[in-house]
């Protein structure tokens, strides 16, 4: 068991990779009542074309990772929620682009709940009947999202930016695609991606690290798994350019919603270097568009934006893009204002005082995040699956320089790469 000490944030991590390949991390939080554990596989909605070892590659229906997540909760003896409930644990799961996470939080019977978490995720039980039954439920989930304007404008932007990459596919799939899912394909996906060597178990809370580790060790030692084989994920090469400049969706909304996305034509970095790029990009966006910027205040005063205005930066080895936007009465004017402002800033560069202020803000916000066991587990897993350490992020914020941000500004904002998504009410 490795012990990793992070003095700057007063945290200690315990880490071990078991013989079957499973990585286990324990973060004791003395004084906490609660224990929160996540069991994650590096498998999400984008992993729809893959092979294992020398086997031929297969393509699977859209939404299958999310479907699988739903079905994992069913065991031969019934719904696993009932078992967690008996043991006083709140359980849940979620699927994102690149991972599926199962979790519980509990204040008692930690050993039992941790065992339940590991065992149910490592025991798939799919039948023709229970797979069919789930389709109606997921159909309602998809319908629920189709009425959600924020979700629609966000996905509209991915569709406008990406030509081939599956990031533009809705995580839940479509009503049509989920009806193509069957038991055999679910098992195929399960056997590929739920091997312990593709998974990470994270435990945080008022626990003893060695005791938790021993429980996991002996649980895993009692099970047999097929030998570790390499997973190959296939992605059609994504062309650099965006797919379409502007995508408009009609849905009844109180005000139009607009999002601008700058797609980076290629991602050349990986690992820690990519994390540094993410940190610099986030500082850059906050200086430009944060609520303490002069630009934000001016547009707010002109009633072009409201409190819903926001921005984010997302990147992985396969995609990198910024998202900027919110509700506005005048989409075209807002797009024009943002474009003009970015072009002007490209000429002048970013002001040092604003840079220092935002850097300070980001450092404080990062530290505040460490109050939340849920956020730590989620962020740690996300970074670990990219072969990075979340606790390095603080250092990267501290090391970030004005020159880095100004260089990023030039590298990131390319107006040929701008895609726009709009949701507006149908014209009467």
């Amino acid at each position: 068991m490795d012990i990793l000490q992070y003095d700057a944030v007063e945290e200690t991590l315990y880490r071990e990779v078991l013989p079957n390949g499973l990585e286990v991390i324990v973060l004791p939080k003395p004084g906490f009542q609660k224990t929160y554990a996540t069991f994650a596989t590096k498998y999400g909605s984008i992993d729809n074309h893959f092979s294992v070892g020398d086997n031929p590659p297969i393509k699977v229906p859209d939404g299958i990772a999310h479907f699988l997540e739903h079905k994992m909760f069913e065991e031969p003896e019934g719904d696993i929620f009932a078992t967690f409930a008996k043991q006083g644990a709140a359980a849940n799961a979620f699927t994102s682009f690149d991972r599926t996470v199962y979790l519980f939080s509990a204040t008692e019977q930690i050993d039992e709940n941790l065992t339940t978490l590991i065992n149910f995720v490592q025991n798939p039980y799919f039948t023709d009947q229970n797979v069919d039954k789930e389709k109606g439920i997921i159909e309602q989930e998809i319908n629920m999202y189709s009425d959600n304007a924020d979700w629609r404008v966000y996905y509209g932007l991915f569709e406008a930016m990406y030509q081939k990459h599956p990031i533009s596919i809705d995580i839940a799939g479509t009503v049509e695609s989920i009806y193509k899912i069957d038991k055999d394909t679910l098992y195929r996906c399960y056997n590929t991606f739920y091997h312990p060597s593709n998974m990470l178990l994270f435990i945080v809370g008022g626990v003893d690290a060695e005791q938790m580790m021993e429980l996991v060790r002996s649980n895993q030692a009692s099970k047999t798994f097929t030998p570790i084989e390499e997973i190959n994920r296939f992605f059609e090469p994504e062309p650099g350019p965006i797919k379409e400049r502007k995508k408009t969706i009609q849905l009844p909304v109180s005000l139009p919603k607009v999002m601008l996305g700058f797609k980076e034509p290629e991602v050349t970095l990986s690992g820690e270097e990519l994390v540094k790029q993410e940190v610099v990009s986030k500082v850059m966006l906050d200086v430009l568009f944060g609520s303490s910027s002069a630009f934000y205040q001016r547009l707010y005063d002109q009633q072009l934006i409201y409190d819903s205005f926001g921005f984010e930066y997302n990147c992985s080895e396969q995609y990198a893009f910024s998202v900027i936007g919110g509700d506005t009465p005048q989409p075209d004017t807002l797009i024009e204002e943002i474009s003009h402002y970015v072009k002007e800033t490209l000429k002048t560069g970013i002001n040092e005082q604003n840079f220092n202020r935002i850097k300070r803000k980001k450092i404080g916000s990062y530290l505040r995040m460490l109050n939340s066991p849920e956020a730590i587990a989620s962020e740690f897993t996300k970074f670990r699956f990219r072969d990075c350490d979340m606790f390095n992020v603080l250092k990267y914020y501290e090391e970030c320089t004005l020159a880095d941000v100004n260089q990023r500004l030039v590298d990131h904002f390319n107006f040929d790469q701008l895609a726009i998504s709009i949701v507006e009410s149908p014209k009467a």
Partner: protein
Amino acid sequence: MDFQKGTVQSLNVHVLPTNRFKTFTITLFAGTPLQEETVTSTALIPYVLRRGTANKPETIALREQLDELYGAGFGFNITKRGNTQFVQFRMDVINDRFVKSEVSLLSEAIKYVGQMVTHPLVENGQFRPAYVDAEKQTLQKQLESVINDKIRYASERCMEEMCANEPYRLNAAGRLEDLPHVDARTLFERYQQWLSEAQLDIYVVGDTTLEEVIGYIEQYFSLPDRSPRPYERADVQYNVDEVKTIVEQLDVNQGKLNLGLRMNTGYASPNYAAALVYNGILGGYPHSKLFVNVREKESLAYYCASRLDGHKGILSIQSGIEFANYEKALKIIEQQIAEMKAGNITDVELSQTIAMLSNSLREMFDSANDMLGFDFNNRYANTNRTIEQLLTEVQTISISDVQTVAQQVELDTIYFLRDRQGV
């Protein structure tokens, strides 16, 4: 968990000294009666206050200050409990020991809230008109945006119909039709009245003491002579004459079926713990009757759950279904309510629910916001039940206790949001 309590200038101070968190959490509750005449102007107050103070008249300076305080989190929300409208200011700042700060971040954070609430920007005896106009627009857009979230829309509409003759029908965020009548002068008058009559409670959780916090409040808050109006709590007893059924049509892809029920039991009732267990068995969890029967057995919905509002004694049920399944889903939901009344509850349902409730009560100790929220609920309801006591009460609830509560429950309103086709 023990909050230390004090009073400064009729402001109630509650401090929980603890070193478990990396932050200081500050919350100020300002409560006034929920009523038609003032609901909108009261809701607008925090929007305008956040724009400028006497010391920092320009909004941008206030925003920059939050960045300087290491990205302090600041926000406000407007809520209701029973017959009271609450304006709540929140601040979350890191403990100084993690950074090399020249000033006490707790002191600066309390100063920020104190100046915003008690030293606003006043020009010519009124708020700055440009700020008031802009924030009226913001609030208007906010109120109009409820339609974008159909789950929330259906839930608010159901409450509005159900409580048509009670203050609770009012949205705490205000009414669109009142906004044109508010201006910089009338809003400033309302602010002065609000500040003198509101019940004010400030909470601080973090590595500090009551004395330190009181010192900062004396320094940074300057309140007028105040006569806070006592809370008028809602009566949770209510007889339903006739069940209301409301069908509304909009351009939606999914139907929203919501039900509103009168519990006739509330936060201050002796059987409140049994009401919590009732809600848990009926619809609070994935093992609950609603989830199991509507979703798992019939695949009618992705979500179907219930929620208890203890201060008002109302239980609401929410679900998202196909339009054509209205009758079927309604029948199954009503059947679950009937099962509860008949006491058709298994030992397993009871023990699972008690275990889940106990867990969420214990988890509160790990969250500064949960702890102060729980303490404030006691303060509002004039009860003094600790988390530990409620935990003990919940664990002794029997099926017959739940049935006793169930027999007082009355269905009041059925609300269905559907598409424009069909009837």
